[in-house]
C-alpha cells in the first residue's frame, strides 16, 4: 500500500480520548462484575452488608477508581456530543467549562461520600 507522505499535525488528543474511553469502560465493566459478585456473595443487600462492604478500605479505593473512570469517561462522551451539536464557539466553551466544573465537583462529592464519615 502506498502511504501518502504527509506531516500529521494537531494536538493528538483524539487517540488519547479513544484509549481513555476504552480503558475506563473496561475498569467500569470489571467493577460492575465485582458488585454483581458481591450481591450474590451477600445474598442480597441489607444495611449491615452495605456498611460492611464500604467499611473495607480496598472496596472504597476500588469504588473511587470506578468513579474516576466514570467521570473521565463522561467527559470524553459529553465533549464529543458538544462538538457535534453545539456549533457556536462561545456556547460550546461555556457548556464545556460548566461540565468540567460539575465533574470536578463530583470527584469532591465522591471523596466526601467515601471518606467523609471516617
Amino acid at each position, binding site marked *: 500500500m502506498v502511504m501518502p507522505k504527509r506531516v500529521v499535525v494537531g494536538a493528538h488528543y483524539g487517540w488519547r480520548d479513544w484509549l481513555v474511553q*476504552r480503558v475506563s*469502560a473496561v475498569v467500569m465493566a470489571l467493577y460492575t462484575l465485582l458488585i454483581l459478585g458481591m450481591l450474590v456473595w451477600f445474598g442480597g443487600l441489607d444495611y449491615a452488608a*452495605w456498611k460492611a462492604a*464500604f467499611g473495607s478500605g480496598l472496596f472504597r479505593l476500588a469504588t473511587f477508581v470506578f468513579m474516576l473512570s466514570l467521570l473521565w469517561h463522561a467527559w470524553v*462522551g*459529553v465533549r464529543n456530543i458538544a462538538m457535534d451539536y453545539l456549533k457556536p464557539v462561545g456556547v460550546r466553551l461555556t457548556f464545556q467549562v460548566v461540565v468540567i466544573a460539575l465533574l470536578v465537583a*463530583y470527584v469532591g462529592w*465522591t471523596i*466526601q*461520600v467515601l471518606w467523609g464519615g471516617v
Partner: protein
Amino acid sequence: MAALDRPAPKPRPVYLDLFAIRLPLPAFVSILHRVSGALLFLAGIPLLLWVVGHALASPEGWAQMRAALSSPVARLVLVVLAWCYFHHFIAGIRHLVMDLHIGMDLKSARQSSAVTLVLAILLTLAVAAKLW
C-alpha cells in the same frame, strides 16, 4: 495550492428530514448509545452519589433511601436508568469487540446491534419485574 486546481465540488443534496429517514439498525443502536450516555451523565451520576451518600450515613438514611426509591416515580426513573446502563454497557462491549476486528462485516454488525437492543430491553424488564 493543489486544492485550487480541482474543479469546485458540485453541491450535494442535503436530506435531513428526521421523520422520514429510516435509520439502519446499527445506527439506531448507535444513537441510543449516545442518548443513554447523556442520560447517565445528566441524571445517573448525581443520583448515584446522592443515594449512596445518604444510605451510607446512618441506618435512618438507609431506610429513608429505601422508602424514597420505592415510590412509583422513583421506580420509573430507576428502570429508565437501568435501561441506559444496560444498553450503554452492551453497546460498549460491542464496540470493544469490533475494535478487535471481530464482527465487522455488515451481516454480523446488524445481528450484534439487534442482540444489543433486545438484550438491554430484556435485562431492563427483569429489573422492572424485580422492582414491582
